[in-house]
């Protein structure tokens, strides 16, 4: 089986998996785990989008 995601899909998958692990391992209560996981996910995705636009303007 070969999986060829788009770059953005790969970013979303990476952010999802990493955020789940960060949330569970870095916080103690379930509520704080969910909050921290969501925070990490948002930071992963937003930073990828911002850096993508920065690289777009650098390349022009």
């Amino acid at each position, binding site marked *: 089986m*070969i999986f060829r995601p788009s770059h953005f899909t*790969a970013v979303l*998958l990476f952010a999802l*998996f990493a955020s789940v*692990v960060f949330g*569970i*391992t870095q916080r103690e209560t379930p509520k704080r785990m969910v909050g921290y996981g969501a925070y990490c996910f948002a930071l992963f995705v937003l930073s990828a989008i911002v850096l993508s636009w920065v690289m777009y303007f650098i390349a022009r």
Partner: protein
Amino acid sequence: MPTQTNTGTAAAQPAQQGFVYLPLIAGWLVPGAGHFVIHKWGRGALLAASILGMFILGLAMQGKVYSSAHEVLDFLCLVGDLGNGLLYFLSRAIGLGGEPVQVTTADWGTRFIVVAGLLNVIAAVDAHNLRTGRKA
């Protein structure tokens, strides 16, 4: 003079019995197993799904599983891959991720596999901390 008791140490005492490194070793060998050993079923299942998912998607993207290192960066990637425990040795044994593929998604897949190993180490250490009582 009244004696002062350390409640934090007393609370951690029951977790100190037995082989405290079992969750660490089990968690490294099999993703999520460290949490299963200490009966944290929900956390273990989520960790296993995340780490296994990342590793399998990395292989499906034709990512490379490092077998040797000729440069410093290769060595770091090899260390990351070894964090996958039995998944690493199993994939090497059946020849998965052995052929370098020159497509963009293969490069991402290689990173997925390395990061899955690093996340697995974090999860195993977390299981060890739960076992020793360092984390609630």
